[in-house]
């Protein structure tokens, strides 16, 4: 913005930041009005092929504007930083609202939309304005093919691509959780909104596997304290928790209660860990002793009330590993995949990604079911191409600017 554009009246060409911010404010108010009279969440979402047609039309409109109106003053403004900065600021305002106000998957209208900004005009219109200025700004700079312009285009087109593919492709995404009992085959799931949906894939659970860390000791009172993991309960350690010393006199990874004691129950289904403890104060005076154990599917939790009113507990063991041996069937290609799904190791079949999601937390290793998240997101490759372009542009930018002394 030059000095002369500072003092000119609003809307007199050449437009600068003031016009940009005025348009941003106008668009924000327009979004609120639209949300009030015609909540976005209540309108149907365009799915394939309508969304693809819309995206292509949007791109074509940008191309037409770029070639037909190239000489107009408004085009120059749109392609300039005078439009870019206000459109980023407007989008940032919405992001900040989203980052501060707790968001829920449902909610529409005013004020409901502020709790579900992603599904509202208040998000959509600023995003469109950003995509518009970003699109024009990029097309304006693609030629001539200089190194600087290539880096610029990679960054900007990459961002445009991943934002618009994410926006237009969102409605084609299918996401469900599938709970499968041992030896069952399941071809339906529960969507994120809680509806049952039939799937074109089926999962057969052959085996669920899990490993756990040893359970931690914890002291519950006005303030809670938990011991860390740096002890081995099988070696009868003395563990300091707050101002107490807890001596483990016996530890059974699989135990079953018998009278006031616990017996070794290795091989017994649903048995859980238990420890015999002797609690001392730091001067060595005995305070309490007895067994503490986790809750299992067949026994309740056992904890010790200390004379000062605090509770000594054995916290549920945390998982070190969990995964499932599965067979996955797909209708589309009649293909069958046998494999292991683990956390961070999904299986893919005909565009579907299958993730290890959960299991029976209380039964632990003896869980009779395993639950999976299945996701079909056909637009993901386009978003990833955008990511790759941003990364390449980023490397280019680092080389061009950062090495400049």
């Amino acid at each position, binding site marked *: 913005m030059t000095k002369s554009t500072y003092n000119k009246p609003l809307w007199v060409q050449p437009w600068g930041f003031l016009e940009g911010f005025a348009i941003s404010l106008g668009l924000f108010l327009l979004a609120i009005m639209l949300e009030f009279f015609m909540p976005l969440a209540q309108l149907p979402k365009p799915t394939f092929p309508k969304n693809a047609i819309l995206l292509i039309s949007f791109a074509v409109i940008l191309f037409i504007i770029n070639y037909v109106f190239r000489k107009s003053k408004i085009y120059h403004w749109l392609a300039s*930083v005078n439009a870019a900065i206000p459109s980023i600021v407007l989008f*940032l305002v919405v992001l900040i609202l*989203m980052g501060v106000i*707790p968001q829920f998957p449902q909610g529409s209208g005013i004020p409901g939309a502020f709790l579900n900004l992603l599904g509202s005009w208040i998000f959509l219109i600023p995003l469109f304005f950003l995509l518009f200025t970003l699109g024009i700004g990029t097309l304006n700079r693609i030629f001539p093919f200089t190194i600087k312009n290539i880096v610029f285009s990679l960054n900007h087109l990459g961002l445009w691509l991943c934002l618009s593919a994410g926006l237009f492709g969102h409605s084609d995404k299918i996401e469900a959780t599938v709970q499968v009992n041992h030896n069952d085959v399941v071809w339906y799931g529960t969507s994120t909104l809680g509806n049952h949906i039939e799937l074109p894939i089926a999962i057969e659970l052959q085996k669920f596997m899990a490993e756990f860390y040893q359970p931690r000791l914890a002291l519950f009172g006005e303030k809670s304290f938990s011991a860390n993991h740096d002890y081995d309960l099988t070696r009868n350690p003395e563990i300091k928790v707050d101002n107490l010393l807890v001596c483990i006199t016996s530890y059974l990874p699989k135990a079953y209660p018998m009278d006031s004691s616990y017996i070794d129950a290795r091989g017994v289904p649903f048995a859980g860990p238990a420890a015999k403890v002797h609690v001392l104060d730091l001067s060595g005076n005995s305070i309490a002793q007895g067994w503490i154990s986790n809750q299992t599917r067949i026994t309740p939790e056992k904890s010790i009330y200390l004379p000062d009113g605090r509770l000594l507990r054995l916290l549920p063991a*945390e998982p070190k590993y969990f995964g499932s041996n599965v067979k996955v069937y797909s209708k589309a290609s009649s293909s069958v995949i046998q494999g292991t799904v683990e956390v961070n190791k*999904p299986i893919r079949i005909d565009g579907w990604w299958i993730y290890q999601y959960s299991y029976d937390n209380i039964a632990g290793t003896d869980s009779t079911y395993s639950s999976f998240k299945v996701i079909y997101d056909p637009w993901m490759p386009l978003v990833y191409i955008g990511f790759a372009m*941003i990364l390449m542009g*980023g*490397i280019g930018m680092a080389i061009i600017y950062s090495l400049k002394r």
Partner: protein
Amino acid sequence: MVWSFFVPAALVVIALWALSLFFVFKDSGRSYAFSWYSALLSTTILGLFIVFYWLDINRPPMRTMAETRIWYSFLVGVVSLCVFKLYRSKNMLVIGLIMASVFLIVDIVHPEYHGKFLMPALQSPWFIPHVVSYMLAYALLASASLAVAWSVYTKGSNDTEFKQPMNLTYLGFVLLTFGMLLGAFWAKIAWGNYWAWDPKEVWALITWFFYLLVIHVHLYLPSRKELLARLMILSLIVLFITWLGIKYLPSANQSIHVYGG
């Protein structure tokens, strides 16, 4: 257990950094050399602590907030050293070492040691590059933001003093982008969605857009230095909200990205 050496190690590191600051203010060629070696020694000690701690706990020491602060202090130390060597920038060494010391002191006050366990979702090859990219980006951007603000508000600065931190800002922004996208790839593998609009992710995007604004203002409005300085300070505040402040926001209880503990 290596962790029990944290407090003495951190105190030694802070003392050496303080010594480095003492020498750098003496303003002579020889005292600059003392300053450099003192900062180099202390940063190396902190780096070695991280290595031994890592070997001891058998998992990447990046799970807890306190652990990310140690990385941050270390990387700020490294960045300050590089900048001092490359640009002879005294300001950035001073800012960097003070900031690194503050974060180590916070860790001495709140040590937050949580032991050796690592939940399955964090057992991923994406974990280390994601966290290191972010911590290095945070270190670069924070040093650069404070240095720009310093050189603009002290007015006694020349253009090179302004250019150097801006170069770091570009590098920091690229690393911020890398960190964010590595996080997206990891999230796709671990949870199924590359972007879930979780409050932490939203704030990461807000930070990214703030530094995007910084870059646009720097490139296209080169004369508006004061605007740039204000924006960089604001961006730094946003960065700290993303890293440390999310838990104080009303949206926080919906975040799955809370640090372990």
